[in-house]
């Protein structure tokens, strides 16, 4: 992965965690498809979400409810693994890794 930009400052790829948003949520993040959280060491998914949605409260509400629970039909993947099958929001993410957010296949 190439380097990313946070607040206009290039961040080396191995010093950041990328959060990839589905297109439907990108308007709530100022049109960005990828948000980045600077990280020098492994952190939790919860910390990553808190960090990248701090400036985007409407985006935050789409992902988690008031209790902090990930919404039922929101799936969050770390390196291709859904976090409910790992350690949930306390699943750790290392610098350079990617967090992928995808809405589940649901609805009638």
């Amino acid at each position, binding site marked *: 992965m190439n380097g990313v930009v946070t607040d206009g400052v290039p961040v080396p790829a191995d010093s950041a965690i990328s959060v990839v948003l589905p297109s439907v949520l990108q308007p709530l993040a100022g049109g960005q498809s990828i948000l980045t959280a600077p990280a020098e060491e492994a952190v939790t998914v919860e910390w990553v979400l808190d960090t990248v949605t701090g400036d985007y409260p409407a985006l935050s509400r789409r992902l988690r*409810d008031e209790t902090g*629970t990930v919404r039922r*039909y929101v799936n969050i993947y770390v390196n291709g693994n859904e976090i409910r099958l790992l350690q949930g929001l306390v699943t750790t993410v290392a610098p350079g890794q990617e967090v992928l957010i995808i809405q589940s296949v649901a609805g009638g």
Partner: protein
Amino acid sequence: MGGMATAESYVLAIGTKKGLWLATSPDRREWSLSGPHFLMSEVPSIGIDSRGGRTRILVGVRSEHWGPTVFHSDDLGGTWEEPENGAITFPDGTDAALERIWQIHPDAESRPGVVWAGCEPISVWKSTDGGEHFELNRGLWDHPHRSEWGAGYGGAAAHSIVVDPTGEKVHVAMSTGGVYRSLDGGASWEPRNRGISAYFMPDPNPEFGQCVHKIAADAAVDGRLYAQNHHGVYRSDDDAESWESIAEGLPADFGFVMLTHPRRAGTAWVIPLKADGERIPPDGKLAVHRTDDAGASWKRLDSGLPDPEYNAVLRDAACVDAAEPAGVYFGTRGGSVYASADEGEHFSEVASHLPDVLCVRAAAVSAALLPMQL
């Protein structure tokens, strides 16, 4: 259609299982439909706030994926705004999360800016800034009965909020829990269900626990309320201290809708369904029923309605406007919407083949606010 807009027109907001449609009309007979807004999100609640020279449409929106929120539009759906931090969010310490906004109720003209909301989980909220931020009503949230309230088929929610002209007397109905009354503007609440049956409970006449589907206040008689219950249609003449059946003369006592006239005493509308176990219009014949004598008698109104029709009408999928004569509107779970400009005597179809209709609200608006389509 093109041409000049008239001085006053009407807007009918239609919330469905998969989005919001807006219909406009110069005469409440011919309608132009636009939408969808919020496609693939359900819109179970709408409030049209025409106080203070501004028309604001508030909508409760819920995405299966992304959760519930409140949007508002001050230009009849041209643009929508969502308060950055959310209009309704459970405060820290409640350990609760908003599931669905069931009711958005702009208060009286004398209390501009005040908007009430009823939500799932069972909760009542009040805004003083036109619906941009709501505060949780702690009196009801902390009520000792809370743990005994239950969920109807659609979820556990406060779905009816009736505020008297003084603002001190507030009635709330919830499914299931029944009717609760506050005499201090919402600070404290007591159940008021005497006379309303809860046949599905071991004690069919409990203090609370009833599955009241909708309540509405008589516009001109202080202390008079009407209720459509989960079987049973009732009236109270004493601020819900006691209820008596007014179901005689109706083809069925089950249903979800209860509407009252905006000005005239004794006039209310229901849309009966056959029974709990058969939630269809009786005999597949859809009809609205109106009383003009507070429930002593009922008149069947089906002119312009389809026959047969097997879809139900949900509790907020019906409304009246404030015009003269009053308009009556409703939509079915089959996606058909009907309007009457003469209090239900004749209906015309506004829309068909929409997703399930969950909520309709109508109001007169300045035609200057409408897109140039009339």
